[in-house]
């Protein structure tokens, strides 16, 4: 399967020409940093050439769609599985009007850690285009092969939402949700669950000490879309500004609980965190519990209703 950039451009151009959308949101090359792709917005068909679709489009787009469409802008979104679900999260939370987004689904073979590639094989960035060979990305015409297990972004290593679901249109290439690098989405969760309790706490405390509480995880998260985050409020002071083990615990506990049953597993929080806090291990724990306790299937696919806003008469009652 190849990264059909021309096809993407063509689709984007058509959307703009047909006035289906006012703008298209995708990625563009950073002129200063060869490995960097940042979110980019194109308003005229003539400029779709600025868009890029290759193994370095790391940033998630969903959260940006929220603010962009606020003013009623009709937005076409180049959406990988994670982006699409993120947008749907926002739609179901009534933060985005369905009619304001046109989801252009791009089956995603996984994204590479640009800096890593840049450090280890800068010549890869001379490529004109890219092909996906399952276990490798292959640059055309240079033929440079990048092994995925070495270069995949963490979030993509863990990804199980590669296929763009619930899109208005999906770029016609084969591909699927299956990710050979992640047989068991809950592996890390299980490992942690099996640790003895004190060690479990030590594990987290270690991370609490490093978390800067810069809120990058919250700000990139499509599920964290509240008008006013309770963690920012002073009255009531859900979370004190003081940073200590206890407050860090409350911060991460609350965050995890607030996305419980709503997280779309896009892994953006993980990517955004500068110190590598394993936010995924918290989010997926919640997913796992939603599955185990309440039998929610595909806990990462957004629904109108959310598990914690529901109940069943026969919910488990294990409090001893």
């Amino acid at each position, binding site marked *: 399967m190849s990264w059909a950039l021309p096809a993407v451009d063509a689709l984007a151009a058509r959307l703009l020409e047909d006035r289906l959308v006012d703008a298209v949101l995708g990625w*563009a090359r*950073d*002129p*200063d*940093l060869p*490995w*960097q*792709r*940042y*979110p*980019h*917005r194109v308003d005229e068909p003539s400029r779709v050439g*600025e868009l890029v679709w290759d193994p370095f489009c790391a*940033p998630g787009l969903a*959260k*940006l769609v929220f603010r*962009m469409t606020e003013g009623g802008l009709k937005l076409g979104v180049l959406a990988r599985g994670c982006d699409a679900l993120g947008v749907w999260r926002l739609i179901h939370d009534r933060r985005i009007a369905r009619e304001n987004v046109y989801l252009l689904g791009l089956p995603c073979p996984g994204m590479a850690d640009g*800096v890593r590639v*840049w*450090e280890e094989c800068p010549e890869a960035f001379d490529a004109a285009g890219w092909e996906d060979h399952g276990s490798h990305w292959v640059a055309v015409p240079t033929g440079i092969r990048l092994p995925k297990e070495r270069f995949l972004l963490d979030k993509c290593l863990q990804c199980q939402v590669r296929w763009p679901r619930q899109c208005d249109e999906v770029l016609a290439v084969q591909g699927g949700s299956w990710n050979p690098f992640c047989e068991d989405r809950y592996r890390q969760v299980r490992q942690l669950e099996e640790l003895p309790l004190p060690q479990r706490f030590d594990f987290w405390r*270690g991370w609490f000490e*490093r978390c*800067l*509480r*810069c*809120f*990058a995880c*919250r*700000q*990139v998260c499509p599920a964290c879309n509240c008008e006013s985050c309770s963690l*920012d409020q*002073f009255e009531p002071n859900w979370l*004190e*500004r*003081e*940073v*200590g083990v206890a407050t860090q615990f409350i911060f991460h506990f609350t965050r995890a609980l607030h996305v419980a049953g709503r997280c779309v597993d896009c892994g*953006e929080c993980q*990517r*955004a965190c*500068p*110190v*590598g806090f394993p936010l995924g291990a918290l989010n997926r724990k919640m997913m796992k519990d939603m599955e185990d306790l309440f039998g929610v299937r595909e806990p990462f696919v957004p629904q109108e209703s959310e598990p914690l806003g529901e109940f069943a008469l026969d919910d488990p009652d294990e409090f001893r």
Partner: protein
Amino acid sequence: MAVKLVRGSDMLRWLRRCGEGRRWVVPAKEDRHWLFAERDGPVVFPPDYRNATVGPKGWLLPRSEPILYYRWTGGRVSVTPAQGWRPQVIYGVRPCDLKAIALLDSIMASEPWPETQYLTRRAHTVLVGMACTAASSCCFCTSMGVHPAESYAADLMIYPLQGEEYGVAAFSEVGREWLAQLEGEEADAAFSPAVPALSLPMPTSLEDLPGWLERRFDDPGWQRLAWRCLSCGLCAYLCPTCYCYGISDVDRGGAGRRVRWWDACTLPDFSRMAGGHDPRPTTTERVRQRIMHKLAYHPARQGEILCTGCGRCIEYCPMGIHLPAALRLLGGDGR
């Protein structure tokens, strides 16, 4: 360059001896990420150490710290100031961060109201710098007039030479005291500093940069840069020169503490006033504020650029907002 030559192991022993009774803050790698953490002594650096994700800033200006404790009794309140410092050595600090600390020093010491708590902690800190032999992919210190082998705020500077060999030089009283305890003669040594990976597309000389930017205060480029800003505090918290803080009280029923914590001008409510008025309501103003503060306002105030080219914001901003991009956009490049 005149330095004392020493083998790595001897150097560590010497440092450890001099640093007796002090807290050692050294770069430590915890899965893929380097951080400055408390350890029982200095360490040898593996070759892959460029610089820490989170610099040593937090050990001088903590993420949050009490500044006073209060206790109500009836209608009266008693207040005791906090004693937040411990003698410490911060070891392995790179020139960009050393320069940043120098900048923080000048800011905190600035009249009419020096920030005593920082200065006290600073006075009890020995900085052992480490010159750069290799650059990380986002470094651009020289573009900001910072040199990868300069000592800046350091008391002692370590220059990795060939193999096991290091050169050490002192730049302060304490530094000289310490160095005196290291046997060995001062000798000349050739040190080849790293060359930063990036050089910024500077639209003008550093001297003219403030003016250049102020002329572009209303440039549409700001909007083109900032629309994708997520309003998190990542850049500010990683930035070695960002020092903005907030103050709030932690109350425990009539007694408690007033704490000072890192704040960031990119966060939405940073400058929102109680009445609701906010001079910097959108990401555009906030991103502009951050960059202007570093490259224009502060130079105008204290004559120095508030960026040392450590490259952290470039490497870690999840949405790829960074200085080069800013300069280019304001330069009028279409994208």
